């Protein structure tokens, strides 16, 4: 019973020690030098030291700040623009072609521009995240509003609902659905945006540590940053999955998201 229920968690945990063992053996057998791949225990030790000196928390906080500020603002901007475009056809016709053009270009390629304009602080990275997040949210919002059944609007009309009621009782809940399914994707993209921005130009953050480690041949620093980033990514993914399940209780959702 216990195994059946938690199979999705138990299996990966069982594989983990095997992975560590293979890693350790690989280094032993092929005599891999320390500066190319440290032994697992060495890496763990360096990670613990990073936390003990407290140096690393500053970088983690900065990257998280960029992700959360950027995602938050990006969602609001995406929602507002998406709603306006869905409601006013003329604006959509005017704006949509440009949206499509900007969409096709990799938004990350704008990173150097943002850094030139806004400097090495968190502003440039937050701006990049806003850009990365707001586009998919905007497109999703347009689709969400468009997909609302005509008869749902007719129902509101029969009930003599005012515009505000149509907005809060019908349009917001329907957009929430699209928004939440988009948020998981947005968060992973937000992290990519923040890290790449940091790698191109920053004074702090996990992406900055990646570049620093690269320039100083510090394999431990690079690996630690990568591990921390994937852990942040995993936590964000699980968190957004939880929020989605809480908010979309009325929908059949993919249950593989969490354990």
């Amino acid at each position, binding site marked *: 019973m216990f195994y059946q229920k938690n199979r999705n968690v138990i299996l990966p945990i069982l594989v983990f020690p095997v992975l560590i063992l293979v890693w350790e053996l690989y280094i032993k057998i092929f005599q891999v030098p320390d500066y190319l791949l440290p032994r697992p225990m060495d890496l763990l030790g360096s990670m613990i030291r990073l936390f003990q000196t407290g140096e690393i928390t500053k970088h983690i906080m900065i990257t998280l700040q960029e992700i959360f500020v950027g995602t938050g603002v990006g969602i609001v901007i995406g929602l507002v623009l998406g709603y306006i475009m869905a409601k006013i056809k003329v604006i959509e016709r005017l704006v949509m072609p440009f949206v499509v053009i900007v969409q096709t270009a990799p938004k990350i390629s704008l990173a150097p521009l943002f850094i030139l304009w806004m400097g090495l602080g968190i502003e440039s990275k937050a701006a990049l995240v806003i850009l990365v997040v707001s586009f998919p949210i905007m497109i999703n919002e347009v689709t969400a509003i468009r997909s609302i*059944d005509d*008869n749902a609007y*007719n*129902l*509101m009309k029969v*009930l*003599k*609902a005012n515009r505000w009621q149509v907005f809060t*009782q019908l349009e917001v809940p329907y957009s929430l659905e699209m928004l939440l399914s988009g948020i998981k994707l947005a968060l992973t993209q937000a992290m990519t945006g923040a890290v790449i921005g940091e790698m191109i130009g920053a004074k702090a953050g996990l992406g900055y540590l990646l570049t620093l480690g690269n320039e100083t041949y510090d394999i431990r620093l690079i690996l630690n940053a990568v591990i921390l980033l994937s852990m942040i990514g995993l936590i964000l993914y699980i968190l957004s999955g939880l929020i989605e399940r809480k908010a979309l209780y009325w929908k059949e959702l993919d249950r593989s998201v969490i354990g």
Partner: protein
Amino acid sequence: MESTKYSVVTKNLGKVYKNLLKDDTVALTDINLEIENGEFVSIIGPSGCGKSTLLKIIGGLEKPTSGEIIYSDPENKLGFVFQDSVLLPWKNVRENAEFPLVIQKKRSPENEKRLDELLELAGLTEFSTALPRELSGGMKQRVSIVRALSYDAPLLLMDEPFGALDALTRDHLNLQLLKIWSKTGKTILFVTHSIEEATFLSDRVLVMATRPGRIREIVTIDLPRPRNEDTRNNPRFAELNKYLRELIG
């Protein structure tokens, strides 16, 4: 007085769609109707005869291009049941049925009590906390009917409400609708493409013709009430069906 006897009266109602390059499309012309209070009237006709358009115009969802509509209810309050139930998926059965009261800010104890009675009447009490995705098509449509009745509008407009359901469920819901109708005393205007359904339910059946959409004949259904399963075995039931079928052609 005319205004007290009739629930809805339409005078020379017409609807024309303007076309840019072709001739205008006349969807409805010269619709003169007198629907009495508490009457059950069905509208049938070939597809494209404008029966749904007529219902939408009476429901205030579309504007006529000519003629006028007189409602007995000064606020012209009415309930509308659509072909698809249009339930809000995040609200459970009771919340969906209660939705009009929320929108119109009429959540008084007596309205809540009437709502519970209606849910009981529709056999939905034990499902009141179920979500729409857990319901069958027939149950969703029952919720939708209760919702349309929840704010006690005197007139109920139904646009092929059982069109998407299987025959057994449809027969069952027809009986239940008659029960609700006789208990609440509403005036019902019912659009359907099933002749048997129209005959079974109605006091009068409005047969429409196409191109342009107009009234061909209004047939009085003189089957005894209350109607039940036996009504379908009544020879008069078959006669009326045959007559209506020939009218539609």
